[in-house]
């Protein structure tokens, strides 16, 4: 039954999508003939950002009376499937959100319109956005998307638990050693409190420590998981689990690290800047929580990722779409977005609004870390080798099996997957 529904769904989706665009196209063409307006569609997944986006679109439409923008929200879990199906059926939105994981696949498949010609023609200064983000959205020397926001990872801590243990709050002087000691000190099995949440998470935990250890995830189409320094970065976490200073991954599958931090069951948690508003909404964390830069390993590093707006390769209104994308990359849009407090705008100098929106947290650290931020690693078939990671690292992160063997196996399998993408 399930497979049938899937297949039927796969078949029905383009049909439904086509009918849907049939309507949009009908609407836009009548709009064009009527008031001389072009309607373009804008695909995104985050419902939290819809309100801000509507304000941005309003400002855009005030500046460009000839273009109107229609938002299409698809939940993240089905966003990429829907987008891909839409591409095959020619029903994808004109402009849509892109992430690092998917950029290369979409660029290579001709699903994105290169932005270079527009950027050069209009002399648009891309330098206002962080360089790492620009690199993330450049494929084979061509720029494919306009950054809109970014997030980095910080060390969130609980001041109350630190005070109880009589430990100084984390700051720039912290290293891996300090984290280990503090985690050991604050772990209290009787109260069910752990020093830290060593969650098996790419972006939040081990991609950061791999870079801090001097290792890498992917370089020149080869996996870096077998590199001894990368393994050091992974072992940082599995050691914490083995010593009992963090819950195991089994426990954190049921109750995620962020939930543990929210319920004050862990003193430290590596988490995303974008989570600030969610943490701020919890009264206990608003009082007891704060954030510091990531502690230093062999070097300093944090993972940066950001979303960007791309133009569909199949868009019938590329000029109107570019006008909108250009606006999304402008100071005006960035400022509206910053005021909403959901994400950090990527436009240089617009981050202050966000930083000041939650005075109890030292959010400035997320901006300061830009100096040594490492781009979220990706290739054309990112999802394939990302899926390999929990399969192979799950054991060591649950206290079963050594991390070194698992990492080397992962490197071998990832290399095979990378070989196949070519």
């Amino acid at each position, binding site marked *: *039954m*399930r*497979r*049938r*529904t*899937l*297949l*039927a769904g*796969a*078949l*029905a989706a383009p049909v439904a999508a086509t009918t849907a665009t049939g309507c949009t196209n009908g609407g836009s063409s009548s709009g064009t003939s009527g008031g001389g307006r072009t309607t373009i569609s804008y695909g995104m997944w985050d419902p939290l950002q819809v309100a801000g986006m509507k304000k941005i679109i309003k400002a855009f439409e005030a500046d460009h009376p000839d273009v109107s923008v229609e938002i299409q929200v698809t939940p993240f879990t089905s966003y990429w*499937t829907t987008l*891909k199906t839409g*591409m*095959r059926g020619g029903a994808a939105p004109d402009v849509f959100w892109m992430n690092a994981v998917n950029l290369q*696949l*979409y660029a290579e*498949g*001709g*699903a994105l319109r290169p932005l270079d010609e527009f950027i050069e023609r209009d002399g648009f200064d891309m330098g206002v956005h962080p360089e790492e983000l620009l690199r993330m959205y450049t494929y084979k020397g061509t720029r494919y998307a306009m950054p809109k926001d970014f997030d980095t990872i910080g060390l969130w801590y609980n001041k109350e638990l630190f005070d109880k243990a009589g430990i100084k709050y984390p700051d720039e002087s912290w290293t891996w050693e300090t984290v280990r000691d503090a985690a050991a000190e604050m772990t209290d099995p009787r109260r*069910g409190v752990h020093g830290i949440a060593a*969650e*098996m*998470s790419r972006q939040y935990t081990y991609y950061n420590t791999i870079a801090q250890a001097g290792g890498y995830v992917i370089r020149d189409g080869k996996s870096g998981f077998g590199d001894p320094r990368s393994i050091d970065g992974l072992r940082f976490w599995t050691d914490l689990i083995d010593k009992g200073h963090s819950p195991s*991954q*089994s*426990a*954190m*599958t*049921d*109750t995620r690290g962020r939930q543990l931090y929210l319920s004050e069951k862990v003193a430290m948690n590596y988490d995303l800047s974008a989570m600030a508003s969610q943490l701020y909404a919890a009264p206990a964390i608003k009082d007891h929580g704060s954030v510091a830069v990531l502690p230093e390993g062999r070097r300093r590093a944090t993972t940066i990722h950001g979303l960007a707006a791309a133009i569909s390769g199949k868009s019938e209104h590329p000029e109107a779409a570019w006008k909108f994308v250009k606006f999304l990359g402008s100071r005006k849009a960035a400022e509206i977005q910053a005021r909403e407090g959901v994400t950090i705008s990527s436009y240089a100098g617009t981050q202050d609004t966000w930083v000041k929106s939650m005075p109890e947290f030292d959010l400035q650290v997320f901006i300061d870390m830009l100096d040594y931020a490492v781009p979220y690693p990706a290739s054309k*078939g990112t*999802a*394939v080798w990302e*899926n390999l990671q*929990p*399969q192979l690292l*799950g*054991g060591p*992160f*649950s206290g079963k099996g050594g991390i070194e063997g698992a990492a080397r196996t992962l490197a071998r399998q990832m290399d095979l997957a990378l070989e196949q993408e070519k």
Partner: protein
Amino acid sequence: MAVFPSTAAAQSAGRAQQRRSSSPPRNTKRRSRSQRAAYLFIAPIALGFLVFYIWPLLQTFWFSFTSFGAFGGNTWVGGGNYERVVRDVTVGQALVNTLLYMAMGLMTLPVAIVLADLMNRRGLRGVPVYRALYFMPFITMPAAVGLVWNWLYNGDFGMVNEVLSWIGVDGRYWISDPSTAVYAIGAVMIWSHIGYYLIIFIAGIKAIPRDYYEAAEIDGAGPVRRFFRITLPLLSPSIFFASVICVINSLQQFDLIFVMMSPENPALGDTQSIVTLFFKWAFAENAQGPAAALAFLLMLLIAALTYLQFRFQKRWVHYG
């Protein structure tokens, strides 16, 4: 849940197979006219069947020999996809898991039969209430069922561990421990499907003439003997139908696993079924070609098992 044919239809189909004789042809002209009317009546369902089942099936078959461009453009790769399916180690694990789900799914049947027999006891009060209670999980969305059970199974705050602690048993992380996860999901599967089979069996038992029981009682047969000598044999057509449906369903286990197992779950590989693997390949990893091959092989497996069941039904199914 897809719409299943009714028990009665399955039984009469079985009977029809049993009866080989056909009635002599009548007036051919009238017959062709009534045939045309018959085709007209089945046209809506036949059309839907062609468009939503047969056509995708043929397409899947074709896709299974191609490399599927993410944004269009399929290129012929011959048997390459099937080769990948055979070689991939995760397929073997998924097959083992899927067969485990099937075995656990079949365990639902004896439980449902016993429950159905109990509910048909004369003098039992509140039967509609029991029936509704047992049927309710079946009509609840699997996604909701999965989420609620995730909470029940939660290793730190879950109800299951809480109850176990009352009797001094140490709980565990049921769905993230590779040694228990597949059974934890199987238990939910059984729990949510039992009502469906229960309804089938209650109807089947109701259809058994009461005289048989009365006669057996006069001959001195006790309740256990009556159950094994009358109820079970005469219920066998329903059991046959239920087992066919059960095998097909549990081999296609997807939604519960999909909802209950997060991507970071260390037990993910130990619970993955053929269909969740298919979904991962086709929709997450852009390997639609191999996924199509996998789906096609699963269909062959299901067809073969169903064929075997029909083949062996003569040995144990009694059409009264």
